[in-house]
């Protein structure tokens, strides 16, 4: 029942990660974008598939957890860790690393799976998810899990922390970039809008937020529970540069991240339209799989579906 993954495969991925450490934390700013990784879309899709399989297996094994909102964020997290961000799995606290804050912390499984694949820790750890004493807590814990940048789980806080990190980058004249992933239900939290306002006020061009816009929260569709539309207008009116993409389409995601990088003095919000439960037919758009683990049978059937990459079939 364990998801396929080989050390060799992980090594390949890890090597492809952008590493431009030149001994010290000093980074040649002019070269920042020149070294973008040569990971092909095909490869990203293969990684995404593995990440999805991990999510299913680990939540199934844990008997609890949040598969729906993990699956919707697979392409977002995969593109960040395997194509966009500058980081080094062998040195998780490298000062000049780009930072990723998973503000919607309940999607920990997608982060753990991607971090394991990137080489931050052994894939075997994934089996311990949510067990007493595990390095992989139910929600991300920066002190227990290598590669987890910030402890989250209480919604709405991550973007503020990302703002703080971006301010520190400016203060230190470091060119690292900060990424935060938030949920649509999470967007109900006022703190998100406090952070949004502050990020624009402080002209944080080094900050990028991604909205995993899967349309569902726990009590139902956003539209019924608490509508956030027109969400792109909201972010624009809060002073952000907004890009809207299909959150399962790597090309669109990579484009959007590149656009964000070229935007100076203004934070960028990537509104990524996604499908909750993406990739597993019986989970897609099913509200209940927000916080319900798959049964043993469901794990098997999901893994059968997840045997070849989903290519370019986008969001809703």
């Amino acid at each position, binding site marked *: 029942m364990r998801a396929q993954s080989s050390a060799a495969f992980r090594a390949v991925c890890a090597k492809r990660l952008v590493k431009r450490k030149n001994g010290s934390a000093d980074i040649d700013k002019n070269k920042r974008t020149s070294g973008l990784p040569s990971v092909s879309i095909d490869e990203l899709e293969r990684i995404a598939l593995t990440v999805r399989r991990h999510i299913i297996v680990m939540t199934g094994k844990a008997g609890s957890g949040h598969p729906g909102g993990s699956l919707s964020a697979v392409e977002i997290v995969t593109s960040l860790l395997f194509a966009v961000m500058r980081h080094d799995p062998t040195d998780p606290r490298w000062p000049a690393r780009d930072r990723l804050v998973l503000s919607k912390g309940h999607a920990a499984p997608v982060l753990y799976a991607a971090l394991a694949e990137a080489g931050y820790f052994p894939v075997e750890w994934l089996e311990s998810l*949510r067990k007493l004493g595990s390095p992989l807590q139910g929600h991300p814990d920066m002190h227990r899990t290598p590669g987890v940048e910030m402890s989250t789980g209480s919604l709405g806080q991550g973007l503020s922390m990302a703002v703080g990190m971006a301010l520190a980058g400016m203060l230190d004249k470091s060119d690292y970039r900060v990424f935060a992933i938030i949920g649509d239900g999470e967007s*109900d939290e006022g703190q998100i809008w406090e952070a949004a306002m502050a990020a624009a006020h402080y002209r944080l061009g080094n900050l990028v937020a991604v909205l995993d816009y899967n349309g569902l929260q726990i009590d139902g569709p956003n539209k019924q529970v608490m509508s956030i539309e027109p969400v792109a207008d909201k972010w624009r009116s809060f002073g952000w540069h907004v890009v809207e993409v299909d959150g399962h389409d790597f090309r669109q995601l990579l484009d959007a991240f590149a656009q964000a990088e070229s935007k100076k003095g203004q934070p960028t919000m990537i509104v990524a339209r996604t499908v909750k439960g993406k990739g597993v037919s019986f989970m897609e758009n099913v509200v209940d799989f927000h916080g319900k683990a798959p049964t043993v049978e469901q794990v098997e059937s999901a893994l059968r579906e997840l045997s070849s990459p989903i290519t370019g079939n986008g969001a809703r």
Partner: protein
Amino acid sequence: MKQGMATREAYGHTLVALGRENPNIVVLDADLSKSTMTKLFAEEFPDRFFDAGVAEQNMVGMAAGLASCGKIVFASSFAVFLPGRCFDQLRMSVAYSQMNVKVAASHSGLTVGEDGASHQSIEDLALIRSLPGFRIIVPADEVASAWATRTAASVVGPMYLRLGRPKSLIVYENGHDFVLGKAVRLLDGDDATIIANGRMLAEALQAAAICRDKGIAVRVLDMHTVEPLDREAVKDAAMETGAVVVAEEHLLNGGTGSAVALVLAEEYPVPIEFVAIKQAFGQSGDPASLLKAYGLTADDIVAAVEKAIARKRQIVSVRRGS
């Protein structure tokens, strides 16, 4: 003891019954209605249910506004977010304003389990106990929870119900006659008193049984109401048994044990042992393993009882007067 419903489930069912009886009852939730069980009310009374989305602060403000217009408002979420995410709102809009708002907070304590520290409220009593005007009930089982919910609806003013996620063991017979602010003496004995509430009451009763087998006779008090605390029962326990153990699924700081310690410091100082979480956050794990890891089992209570009694014996007290 038989397993019954979780206290949150009894809350949800009682809310529905109350909704049928009283059209003035309004229920709010913050995107957790399936977990807090307010969903049952929402399904039967969609017009009187408002979801605030993931916005606990605004939920509390809405509750206050509705209450100011004569509604009896129940607002629910997880105990870690309500009061944790909206303390200042509970302070100004509810406590200071004396609004008829009932805060029913589910998923209290470590027994939330696998979600881990971010979701395990171990400090909510400390917060609510610092809000003048709030009454606090920590029901131990489905019977107590149903009573607590009905009491919340009938007593005017801010009230806090501390509810749990896992199934609870049944302590009370249906229709047990609780009184707000009066502890229930479930067992009697002279050697020591165990004061407990919520999830820990069942552990306390088990501990008392173990003690009996060891020849130790303990009084067990269900301190279901933490505010106002039953000062008489606490004082009597100290005077009559001379050693007290307080067991709760909460931090030592600010919880039921702190309330008991204050009373005895003022009224009748005796040795107290605390079976509570010492300054540390929770973590992921199944509820049983967590209770064990954090020292919150019947065995831990027994050890505390033995220690309290040993300390009592060390003090030969002659009390004049009272």
